[in-house]
């Protein structure tokens, strides 16, 4: 490809790629790599601005404390795992169905797509705003149901430990499903129509087409989007922070939320750094395991 063409001056070309990636690389070194390294460094330190007399090298004591003497860590880790699995599983299932539906040809398809995808653009805090209005016991949905004779007045799903998890799940689902639907729809449109036509000639019905053409084709997209979303759901704290604040009684505290509380409110930055390190390693390990198990990018036979 690059043989006889009159490329603009060779010598400058050799430096050009470095000049082009320089802004991105510098920004990422300064604001992602450097903070990451400082987190690693502080994870081996006692560092607490409210107790400066104890600051100094701490060895692995922060880590031993995490694994042996911190029930909140295990509780928040368990909640994070449950949150990620439930959210990603449900979002994928609903997103897949939704993408298959709006990929059909029907009247009003354009407007239907725009409407069902719209919560994608909504922020965590705005989702909280909307669902707080819906969950509010005196003016929310339950009040109108109670007016109609269903349920009782004054039930607040957000302060009841039995319902708060699913209340939060539903709110996050509302804004999370469109992400999967958009990605899967994009990939659906790259399936050659000829495959379906050939299958029709062979007498395949639409369930067989779904099973043998559509789903295998979508595999890589599904693996990648579930991974991205899983990491995102693990890391993102906006919704839970504003909707439940991690409560009631620490019931909905995810690991990042616990870290933020420890570092920002508790000022215990050394310990928060150790928690961050552990969270990062867990995340990386799970991601690699997931890619391995799903044989991402492998051939589809």
């Amino acid at each position: 490809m690059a043989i006889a063409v009159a490329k603009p001056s060779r010598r400058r070309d050799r430096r050009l790629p470095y000049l082009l990636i320089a802004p991105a690389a510098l920004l990422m070194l300064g604001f992602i790599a450097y903070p990451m390294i400082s987190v690693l460094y502080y994870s081996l330190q006692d560092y607490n601005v409210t107790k400066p007399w104890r600051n100094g090298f701490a060895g692995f004591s922060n880590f031993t404390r995490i694994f042996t003497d911190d029930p909140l860590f295990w509780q928040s880790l368990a909640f994070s795992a449950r949150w990620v699995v439930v959210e990603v599983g449900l979002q994928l299932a609903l997103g897949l169905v939704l993408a298959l539906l709006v990929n059909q040809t029907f009247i009003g398809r354009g407007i239907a797509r725009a409407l069902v995808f719209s919560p994608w653009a909504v922020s965590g805090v705005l989702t909280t705003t909307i669902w707080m209005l819906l969950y509010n016991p005196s003016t929310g949905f339950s009040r109108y149901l109670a007016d109609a004779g269903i349920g009782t007045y004054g039930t607040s799903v957000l302060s009841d430990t039995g319902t708060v998890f699913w209340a939060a799940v539903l709110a996050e689902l509302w804004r999370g499903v469109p992400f999967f639907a958009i990605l899967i729809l994009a990939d659906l449109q790259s399936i050659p129509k000829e495959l379906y036509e050939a299958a029709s000639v062979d007498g395949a019905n639409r369930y067989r087409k779904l099973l043998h053409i559509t789903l295998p084709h979508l595999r890589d997209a599904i693996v990648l989007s579930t991974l991205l979303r899983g990491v995102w759901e693990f890391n993102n704290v906006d919704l839970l922070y504003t909707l439940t604040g991690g409560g009631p009684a620490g019931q909905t505290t995810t690991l990042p939320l616990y870290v933020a509380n420890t570092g920002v409110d508790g000022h215990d930055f050394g310990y928060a750094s150790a928690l961050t390190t552990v969270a990062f390693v867990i995340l990386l390990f799970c991601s690699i395991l997931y890619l391995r198990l799903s044989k991402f990018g492998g051939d589809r036979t």
Partner: protein
Amino acid sequence: MTAALAEKGIRAVPPAGITPPRTARRRRRAVDDGTPRWQIYLPLGLYLLFTLVPFYWMLLFAVRPAGSTSLVPWPATGEHFAKVWNERSFGMYFQNSMLVGVATLITTTVVALCGGYALARFRFRGKSAFMLGLLCSQFIPGALMLVPLFEIFRNLQLINSLWSVIIAETVFQLPLSIILISGFIKNVPMALEEAAWVDGCSRFRGFCAVVLPVLRPGLIAVGSFAFVHSWNHFLFALMFLSSQDKQTIPVGLNTLIGADSVDLGALAAGGVVAAVPVVIVFAFIQKWLITGFSAGAVKG
């Protein structure tokens, strides 16, 4: 450029000669696999209810007078909007959020365009390390970086400046944006650019004349991503902006949520103010969003 589009178009159309000339209609039929209409409309209708009722609920609370329990937004009042915009300073928050959103959009798109071009068109030492860095940074939680980032911005004396949020947003948008844009650029045939060079264009002019126009949908997708994300982001603004006149809409909403006695009308009106720009952006880009992704984004 037209050659590239034609090339793409040809792949979508079945081979000539076999198909009758009305290909457009045939192609649309091909998606219709004979699913009964009710199996589409019923589940879609139910899902639409789930999507739209929450939006309706917010609008309802935003326009109905305080104390009303009506389920229809009539008679409507603007009192809640006037209140959040003036008394609760949402006018100022709106301005700040706009500044952050537009600045992030510009910086992210420009920086990612440079990086993406380098990845798509050059082989150079350190390229795979750079790629690895991009991928790994996807796993680093922004929420866990709050404290070290705070220290950095304090040292740079950018705490309480909108620039801290703009920089942080840009940095966390960059990896995905670069990966997406380099995917888009790879889809533009190299031969097009080489043809421009033969015609005497410099690399830069050739890029502007040949690649940029084809990239437009992809750039719009990436740029609106950056805008929507920074418009929506909460934690950075909450942490880095301390004085009230610098804060952004999500922080303002959080203040309303956390108030001792929540003013639901004001909260709903604030929510509508927060939603309007992203809804407009979304309505504008949602078609490009899907084509942008299918242009090789997910497959890298």
